[in-house]
């Protein structure tokens, strides 16, 4: 049985005057999944989130939540709650009063509300801090209060607008794992907007990547990383080397591509339908490039190269490799494991890769 759909976004567009912020987006969020909308700033992801929350009306298209059409329903009557980028903690209320704010018309009495607040505080790891004033909270605590305040209302969908952007790196990483665990324990659909690809990849079940108001690709993080559908997506998520070549022939699901320097390589077709002779770009992750002193054994294609620069990252080392007849160096990321051979700048090396590691990208 298929998981029921929590949110259905059908052909939604939004214009602000002449500016089209969101263009014909179709998207379905499944019940209980953690979905991230990823994209550079100004790509329309926040506008999409705000349309689901009810703060903006779509110019075209429809949004249904839990099977209910949301047109004409104000934000205060929608089964959604939001964690704001600034957290929007009410400064004149203490933690507990913030959390029960939305329960004003729930019909619960004071004791029941307090019990609910305490339960939520426990869940977000703030037990015993109900009496704290809003101004006495640290950034991480504010985020937890914002989460508790939204989740106590048991929304169909929890919307999170760049929830980590105000936290420092260490706390951010900790909160990401906590958020993931919290989502699993409450089982509510989470929709998070972020521009941080690492954040989106670490915590989401699925991600949608947006550029210029359009949804470019929706997939699980692994697929997004390993099989980006467009050059833009490939470039935005992780590091990527692009090598231009020419289609040689289609051969039952795979594609023979003629590359300069490297020669002929067989790559998965990946939906590319252009004919033989058409130009094509392949994407190659830095960690998929072999760099060795001698001609590599495990690679399908290889070429001689010269190390022009290197950058040390601790767990990995990046080599910038100049190839004959190529303007930009390609970047290879080599894991810094024990007894790994290192190369110096100016050293002649062999670089290569396997056809299965490359992804064919259609021309934009």
């Amino acid at each position, binding site marked *: 049985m298929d998981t029921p759909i929590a949110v259905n976004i059908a052909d939604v567009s939004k214009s602000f005057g002449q500016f089209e912020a969101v263009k014909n987006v179709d998207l379905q969020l499944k019940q209980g999944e953690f979905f991230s909308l990823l994209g550079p700033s100004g790509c329309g992801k926040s506008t999409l989130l705000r349309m689901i*929350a009810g703060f903006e009306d779509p110019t075209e298209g429809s949004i249904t939540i839990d099977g209910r059409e949301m047109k004409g329903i104000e934000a205060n*009557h929608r089964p959604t709650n*939001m964690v704001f980028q600034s957290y929007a903690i009410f*400064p004149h209320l203490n933690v507990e009063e913030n959390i029960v704010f939305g329960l004003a018309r729930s019909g619960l009495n004071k004791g029941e509300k307090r019990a609910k607040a305490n339960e939520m505080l426990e869940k977000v790891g703030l037990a015993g801090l109900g009496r704290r004033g809003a101004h006495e909270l640290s950034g991480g605590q504010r985020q937890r209060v914002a989460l508790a305040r*939204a989740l106590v209302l048991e929304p169909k969908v929890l919307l999170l607008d760049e929830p980590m952007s105000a936290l420092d790196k260490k706390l951010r990483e900790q909160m990401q794992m906590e958020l993931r665990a919290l989502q699993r324990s409450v089982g509510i659909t989470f929709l998070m907007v972020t521009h941080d690809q690492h954040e989106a990849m670490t915590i989401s079940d699925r991600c949608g990547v947006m550029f210029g108001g359009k949804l470019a690709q929706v997939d699980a993080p692994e697929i997004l990383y390993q099989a980006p559908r467009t050059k833009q997506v490939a470039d935005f998520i992780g590091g990527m080397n692009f090598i231009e070549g020419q289609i040689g022939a289609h051969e039952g699901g795979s594609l023979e591509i003629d590359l300069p320097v490297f020669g002929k390589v067989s790559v998965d077709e990946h939906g590319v339908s252009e004919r033989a002779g058409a130009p094509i770009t392949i994407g190659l992750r830095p960690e998929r490039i072999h760099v060795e002193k001698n001609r590599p054994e495990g690679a399908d294609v290889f070429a001689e190269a010269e190390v022009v620069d290197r950058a040390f990252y601790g767990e990995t080392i990046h080599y910038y490799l100049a190839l004959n007849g190529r303007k930009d160096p390609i970047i290879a990321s080599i894991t810094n494991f024990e007894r790994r051979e290192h190369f110096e700048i100016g050293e002649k090396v062999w670089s290569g890769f396997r056809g299965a590691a490359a992804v064919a990208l259609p021309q934009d």
Partner: protein
Amino acid sequence: MIVTKETKTGLLLSAPATLYVLLLIAAPVALTIAYSFWTQDFVEVRREFTWANYAEVFSDPLYRTLIFRSVRIAAMVTFLTVLLAYPIAYYIAFNVKKSKALWLFLVTIPFWTSYLLRVFSWKIVLAQNGVVNSALLSLGIIDAPLDTLLYNSEAVVVTLAHAWAPFAILPIFVSLEKIDRSLLEASKDLGEGPVRSFLRVTLPLSIPGIVGACLIIFIPTVGDYVTPALVGGSDGAMVANMIQVQFGKANNWPLGSALALSAVVCVTIAACIVVGALKLLERSLK
């Protein structure tokens, strides 16, 4: 005490202000306090300690009435001004998008003419042959001009409420402007409509501005004597008018001083009550 160069510079820099405060504020207040315990003996002031002036202030119903009336009028002026100023401040803070500075500039326009002229212009508006009466007459709503518009405490309230408007609009505007707009979205997101969002978020967060406006208006209004003198008549006379009489025509400085200081004490108490009431309101809105 070791006098360093910095302390010397500091003393030198603060000397003009200190001197100013001592000569023009501390000394007159001290003198007023001293006078309030002395007695006027026809042309001379007898410098012997006595509570008699205060006894007179609190036993004579005339003075008591004047002080209570002053506080009452000031309270009404404060209430009316804040009530009328709040929507304007709200409008400028939330609905004016581009030209906020222009709006604030327009709010201050009444200050371009002198206070006295503004009071006089209300006389023109409220007089027997004034704007209001002639308008009502020509519209046929009344047959004879109303003579109840001017020379009473209501006239004082109306005139002062107009005069103080910018003093209320500005602090309330500042407190509204400071409210993070995402708080209002959060309130809506958590299920509250516009009215309850206003009562639960906007209003409590603007209380500091309201407190400021109340104090700025209430305190000088209790002691105002120009407006009651011009538009108040005998019915609208306030304590400051009596103080002026004691220092002038009646030539009883000790009684005037005792009246002035009693008024100060009453204002302080009343102001504390106003602030306390607003704090209570703030708590009840939670």
